[in-house]
């Protein structure tokens, strides 16, 4: 019989094996959530144990890519938490205008909804042309979908509502073309976007930035890994640059709490002090 302790040992071994073989580092993710996701995958792949899954993942890279879809939670929305984007527009954009050119890093961009939201906001505020956006993630499937910018038409109704609540004043359908049940995003929105594979767990800073948006990624990290990521953002951000987080994420419990001040605390908008 497999006890709970056995399962915990197997999970540690699987994560270690993934790191050694594929260099994806999940060792410092929040334990409870990753355990659930691995056990879910064990069921979906019809493996008897986590060890059985490990054997398949170790010997078959395509199996690892499938498992990665479970490990990364690729869910997103356009203008997710509209009040956050409204605060970006009202409180942050006026300050962004003071820089002649902008570099913006969207870390953990998943399938790209956040990137297009940001690009739309910047375009409406006249800032997109002088901006470079770096959109990074560890999941190559998600990055590919982000680059394509094709989403289910069904979701557009809700996104349009989010957009409106986020202070959007145009008709949201101007930003996409509908075809075969899909919404194809206006490709000029990504003219200034560079999509790249980058891990907050293993990679280093690649550019100076004025704004970093890392939303709904840090909750999956433990404190040590959060601190690593905050360290990267701190290093990347220029003097008085902005860091924006997901609505349940905070810098307060981190080692970097004193290096940032809250600009709009309820919307998780911080500024390098």
């Amino acid at each position, binding site marked *: 019989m497999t006890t*709970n302790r056995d399962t*915990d040992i197997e999970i540690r071994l699987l994560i270690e094996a993934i790191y050694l073989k594929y260099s994806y580092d999940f060792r410092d993710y*929040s*334990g*409870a*959530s990753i*355990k*659930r*996701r691995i056990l879910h995958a064990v069921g979906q792949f019809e493996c008897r144990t986590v060890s059985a899954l490990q054997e398949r993942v170790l010997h078959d890279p395509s199996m690892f890519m499938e498992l990665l879809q479970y490990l990364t*939670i690729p*869910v997103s929305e356009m203008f997710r938490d509209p009040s956050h984007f409204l605060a970006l527009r009202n409180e942050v954009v006026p300050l962004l205008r003071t820089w002649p050119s902008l570099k913006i890093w969207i870390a953990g961009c998943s399938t790209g909804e956040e990137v297009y939201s940001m690009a739309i906001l910047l375009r409406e505020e006249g800032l997109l042309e002088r901006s470079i956006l770096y959109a990074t993630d560890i999941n190559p499937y998600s990055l590919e979908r982000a680059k394509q910018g094709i989403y289910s038409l069904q979701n557009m109704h809700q996104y349009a509502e989010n957009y409106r609540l986020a202070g959007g004043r145009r008709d949201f359908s101007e930003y996409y073309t509908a075809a075969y049940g899909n919404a194809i995003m206006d490709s000029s929105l990504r003219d200034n976007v560079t999509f790249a594979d980058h891990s907050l767990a293993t990679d280093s800073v690649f550019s100076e930035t004025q704004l970093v948006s890392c939303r*709904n990624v*840090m*909750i*999956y990290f*433990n*404190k040590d890994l*959060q601190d690593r990521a905050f360290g990267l953002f701190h290093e990347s951000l220029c003097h008085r640059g902005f860091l924006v987080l997901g609505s*349940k*994420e*905070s810098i307060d*419990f981190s080692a970097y709490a004193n290096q940032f001040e809250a600009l709009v605390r309820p919307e998780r908008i911080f500024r390098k002090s």
Partner: protein
Amino acid sequence: MSSAQAIVIGASAGGVAALFEVLGRLPPTFAVPVLCVLHLPQDRPSHLADVLQRRLRRTVREGCDKERIVAGMIYVAGPGYHLSVEHDLSLSLSQEDPVHFSRPAIDFLFESAADAYGGQLVGVLLTGANQDGAAGLARIKQNGGLTIVQDPREAQVALMPEAALALHRPDHILSLSGIGQLLATLEPSAC
């Protein structure tokens, strides 16, 4: 008198009144931390923590990501996120798919807390029209914890307690007042 490091409580339909009834019986100095998941609408802010705090005159907070669990506190899961307990006895939030149509899900809290606290955990499942929590409660039992199910005959909606009873035999099947009285005798155990 027995001891515990934490209490987890799950409830759904009819849960607010049931929670008041149970938590209201705990003395003001009650030191064992209590963590609650009540099914809520996902898309709007919840006032559950405020409402409980005012009624109970105890400190009640929505659990934050990476927050350390503190003695004497009551935590509730906020809407839209699963709440878990980590091995270092801090809280974490996540947005995996809903379980039994619920996020927060009772199973998430129960299963993670069962792993973190082992035999030092008390799990309580109350009224509800949903199967959530049954698997989690069984896991608490499996890991050596104490399990309590509200008597389905008394529950406002019996489905949730019944689903739990179908899966394992809890240590106690009690009325709300009985649950409150039993919990009130618990002492915090040394970590």
